[in-house]
């Protein structure tokens, strides 16, 4: 028997009873579609979290005042209120090998007013390096320069949310005057939106020179955060150790009165959380796949019984056992493969719907599509084999007489 004829026989076998084949496929379609949809939600969440972490800046180490409570990423929540870090600490950190840029900032929540409107937002006094360290880019205008720092200029760079609150959406903010703690500032720049999410929204902030901040708002030379950008991912641990050593030496203490937070620790913690989430979702979907597979086996066994006389006839006219096995296994594979393909399309559609209506990012990874297709074909092989073997072992005499 030629291969092409064998395939034709399988296709005829599948299409001969469309309702039965359709129902068999349905189990696989649902299983695969849910695997794809669940994985896309898991992967989407993971991507969203990783994006929001990397939007803080890349290869970033954050030095905060106050002692670290325990190892890892858990930082004492009141860390910002302690006053141990100064601008000169930040200057000193620049000399550490592997450090690309250092910014220092001090922030405080204040009421900001302009003609006719006001808002409560975060005012961050900082240095020019802030843009590169914290991954902030300008929409229009310029960021704070060294000249502004030196002259304690009353200039402000505002985030898009602040612009919307004070001047209205898409209004021109550059050159406008705003009032912070009784002093008037000129808006010189607008930052690009970062799609702010989570606890610190970078879009809802006003940046002013650090020197201006300490002179007119905070009234002290202390900074609340020093952001250090390392040259690469690889040197981060070394840089972190050097920062620790240098600051201990500068502060002349043995126990740290500051803490250093490593961005990659954050990423790996978040990844492990989302990884667990993805695994959970995938295992729920996996169960429905298994049920679909057993459904296939059940259907195939029924089919074998129903087609006993046909099998007997095929054997009587010269079909070998192997040809019968290939026929039934092939039918199971066609059903699961077609079901898998439909399931992938459906799952893709569902994930699109989720991202549209549930405002949740979904990503359908290519490996999940490959996995789903492989699994559905595998199910056809595994769950089709037993019924196929049973069919091939039927005695033609008994099979022909079967009522």
């Amino acid at each position, binding site marked *: *028997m*030629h291969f092409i*004829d064998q395939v034709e*026989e399988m296709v*005829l076998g599948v299409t*001969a*009873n469309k309702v039965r084949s359709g129902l068999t496929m349905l189990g696989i379609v649902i299983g695969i579609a849910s695997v794809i949809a669940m994985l896309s939600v898991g992967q989407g969440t993971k991507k969203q979290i990783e994006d929001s972490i990397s939007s803080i800046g890349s290869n970033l180490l954050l030095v905060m005042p106050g002692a670290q409570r325990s190892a890892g990423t858990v930082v004492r929540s009141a860390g910002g209120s302690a006053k141990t870090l100064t601008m000169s600490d930040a200057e000193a950190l620049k000399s550490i090998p592997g450090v690309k840029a250092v910014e220092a900032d001090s922030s405080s929540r204040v009421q900001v007013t302009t003609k006719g409107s006001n808002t409560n937002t975060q005012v961050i006094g900082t240095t020019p390096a802030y843009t590169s360290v914290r991954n902030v880019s300008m929409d229009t205008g310029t960021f704070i320069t060294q000249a502004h720092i030196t002259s304690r200029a009353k200039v402000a760079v505002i985030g898009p949310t602040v612009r919307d609150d004070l001047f209205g959406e898409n209004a021109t903010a550059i050159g406008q005057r705003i009032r912070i703690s009784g002093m008037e500032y000129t808006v010189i720049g607008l930052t690009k939106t970062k799609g702010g999410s989570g606890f610190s929204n970078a879009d809802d902030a006003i940046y002013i020179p650090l020197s201006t901040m300490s002179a007119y708002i905070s009234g002290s030379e202390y900074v609340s955060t020093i952001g250090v950008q390392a040259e690469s991912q690889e040197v981060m641990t070394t840089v972190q150790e050097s920062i620790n050593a240098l600051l201990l030496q500068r502060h002349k203490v043995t126990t740290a009165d500051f803490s250093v937070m490593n961005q990659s620790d954050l990423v790996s913690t978040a990844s492990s959380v989302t990884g667990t989430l993805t695994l959970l979702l995938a295992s729920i979907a996996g169960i429905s796949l298994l049920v679909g597979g057993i459904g296939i086996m059940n259907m195939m066994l029924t089919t074998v019984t129903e087609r006993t*006389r*046909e099998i*007997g*006839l*095929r*054997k*009587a*006219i*010269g*079909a*070998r*056992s*192997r*040809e019968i096995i290939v026929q039934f296994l092939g039918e199971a594979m066609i059903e699961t493969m077609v079901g898998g393909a439909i399931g992938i399309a459906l799952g893709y559609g569902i994930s699109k719907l989720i991202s549209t209506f549930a405002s949740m990012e979904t990503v359908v990874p290519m490996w999940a599509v490959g996995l789903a297709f492989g699994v559905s074909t595998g199910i056809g092989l595994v769950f089709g084999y037993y019924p196929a073997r049973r069919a091939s072992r039927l005695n*033609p*005499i008994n099979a*022909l007489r079967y009522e």
Partner: protein
Amino acid sequence: MIELSHICKSYVNGAEETKVLRDVSFKVENGEFVAIMGPSGSGKSTLMHIIGALDTPTTGTYTLDDRDISTCSEDELASIRKTRIGFVFQSFHLLSRSTVLRNVMLPLIYAGVTDGERERRARTCLESAGVPKNLHTHLSNQLSGGQMQRVAIARALVNDPTLILADEPTGNLDSKTGDHVLGTFQDLHAQGRTIVLITHEPYVAEHAERIIVVRDGQIVQDQKNPHPRKVSVATEESS
């Protein structure tokens, strides 16, 4: 040519051994039309299974076209059925959701015959079995009983077998349609085909040229039938 010598077949059921065939020997020459007759339980079905290479004898030898096939493996038997034997069953056994043509081509598909050749041979055989051309593309479950059995006969012919083996071919048909089918067998015999027909009805057996009577697993009578019952085969079947 087929030759059975000292064929015995017994089934073991627990400790009990049932002898179904005891020392059956006979020979069928090419071009013969033989009826094997016997009541149910006589062992004629078992005999048919052995002749049809569906089963192997416990002892004895069965030679088909000078080849001893009594000790063949399952796959070898399948290959012999595919090339040397054409079956016609009481209940037709057509694939109901396939066309008439596809049903007849099925043995050729398993034999690995090419596409065009397949259809040509299937159409020729359908013609010699008396199936009109307009039915070739019908689904086989749309046919009448007589038409189905003719399609089944065409399927048996399509591999140009040494032997056509018919098991109660008229059992599911009314007497008039049955006569037409028997007439078809007589026509095929006239064309030089070898036919072995298994039946329990003397009336059906009388259409053959030689009648072998089996009882209790043994041949009790084997004689020529010099005046086979003639069927007036009309060119068009009414059923």
